[in-house]
């Protein structure tokens, strides 16, 4: 007995070692499977606050580029608006009706604006931290976009912050289609380069070319159809040789993420309700 006790006292650091390692690995695997461990992520209060301060400082560095981007986009949209107005007036729509439409748009757009306060690029699984949380209406499984295209999907939230699974994450799969032809597949990231992802499962008879635009398919309820994802950069074969695998140049520059928008769930709820009622009618 005394020998046993002596043994335990002499080597208890071994037990401590294994205990700590087991705790670490439990945390690691729990994080991968459940969404409840948000305390140990950058969305907890202390980490969030520190990253917010950092984000406040670094966001100034990108102001000029962001401004130019916005100006370009503004110009494009104004041009589009003018064209559409002309077209509508050509078809004999009253100008009062056109103004009425503007009000409707303002009512419907309840996108949540958020700032990126932390992000990573080169890990196998990258996450992004936003400065908006469940208090602002952000909930898990909401889509996140920035001015160029798709960014990712909200993973977990705390009252003030939220963690987003970036597109640069092996867990992230988003349904996409080729603009124009409508052939669809799943886009996923395969590591290494943050500029490219791969679109899988495109059938052999699909027709497309280099430079074609890839947009979200809208089949899932996270992203509506038609949000920019990227352009086709290279056409390859899938591993089993049965379908195409396209190398897609992502439209979003993950190295310069700054302000993003979270897509609200209201439309998703509507779609869900609609699907449910359709199912009921079928029965």
């Amino acid at each position: 007995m005394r020998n046993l006790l002596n043994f335990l006292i002499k080597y208890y650091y071994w037990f401590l070692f294994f205990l700590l390692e087991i705790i670490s690995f439990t945390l690691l695997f729990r994080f991968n499977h459940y969404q409840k461990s948000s305390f140990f992520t950058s969305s907890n209060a202390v980490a969030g606050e520190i990253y917010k301060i950092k984000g406040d400082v670094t966001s100034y560095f990108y102001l000029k580029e962001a401004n130019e981007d916005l100006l370009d986009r503004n110009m494009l949209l104004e041009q589009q608006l003018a064209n559409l107005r002309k077209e509508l007036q050509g078809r004999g729509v009253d100008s009062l009706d056109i103004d009425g439409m503007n009000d409707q748009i303002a009512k419907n757009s309840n996108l949540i604006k958020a700032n990126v306060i932390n992000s990573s690029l080169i890990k196998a699984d990258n996450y992004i931290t936003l400065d908006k949380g469940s208090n602002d209406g952000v909930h898990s499984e909401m889509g996140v976009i920035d001015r160029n295209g798709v960014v990712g999907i909200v993973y977990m939230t705390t009252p003030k912050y939220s963690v987003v699974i970036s597109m640069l994450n092996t867990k992230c799969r988003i349904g996409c289609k080729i603009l124009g032809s409508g052939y669809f597949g799943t886009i996923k990231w395969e590591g290494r380069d943050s500029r490219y992802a791969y679109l899988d499962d495109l059938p052999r008879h699909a027709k497309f070319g280099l430079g074609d635009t890839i947009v979200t398919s809208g089949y899932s309820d996270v992203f509506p159809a038609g949000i920019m994802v990227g352009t086709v950069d290279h056409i390859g074969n899938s591993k089993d040789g049965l379908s195409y695998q396209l190398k897609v140049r992502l439209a979003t520059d993950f190295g310069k993420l700054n302000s993003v928008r979270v897509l609200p769930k209201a439309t998703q709820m509507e779609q869900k309700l609609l699907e449910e009622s359709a199912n009921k009618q079928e029965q």
Partner: protein
Amino acid sequence: MIITYLRRIKWFIALVLIQVLVLNNVHIAGFATPYIYIYLILKMSSGTSRSEMMLWGFFLGLTIDMFSDTPGMNAAATTFIAFIRPLFLRLFSMRDSTDEYVPAIKAIGVSPFVKYVILCVLLHHTALLMIESFSLFDLSTLLIKIGSSTVVTVLCIMGIEGLRK
């Protein structure tokens, strides 16, 4: 005693902030990221007990994990390095006396200290990056990452060491 702890906590906070605010965003050529926070573990006095060192390592790693959304990864690797460190220190320091000392060039000599740092850093990075690549295994990228990150981290640590003199 209390001064030692206060100084350690000061280093803890400083290293965590440097790591998460600056160095986690450094990816030289897309591969090399310095992880200098293990400097705290490397510089603990030789008389520190193994379990105390492992607890420091665990919480240091866990704090880094919280900030970089990798629960458990850094904690596991840093606990491991704290566990194995006394062995390496004994291996490289040729000291006869049993009095306490802080691992440094002055205390154990240039070449043993450099070897000690390189081995510890290499082991830590191997553990950390292997755990990270569980879900995405690619041997050549992994080896490049381990090698380049080790070089950068060792350079940073020797830099801090040089500045502190």
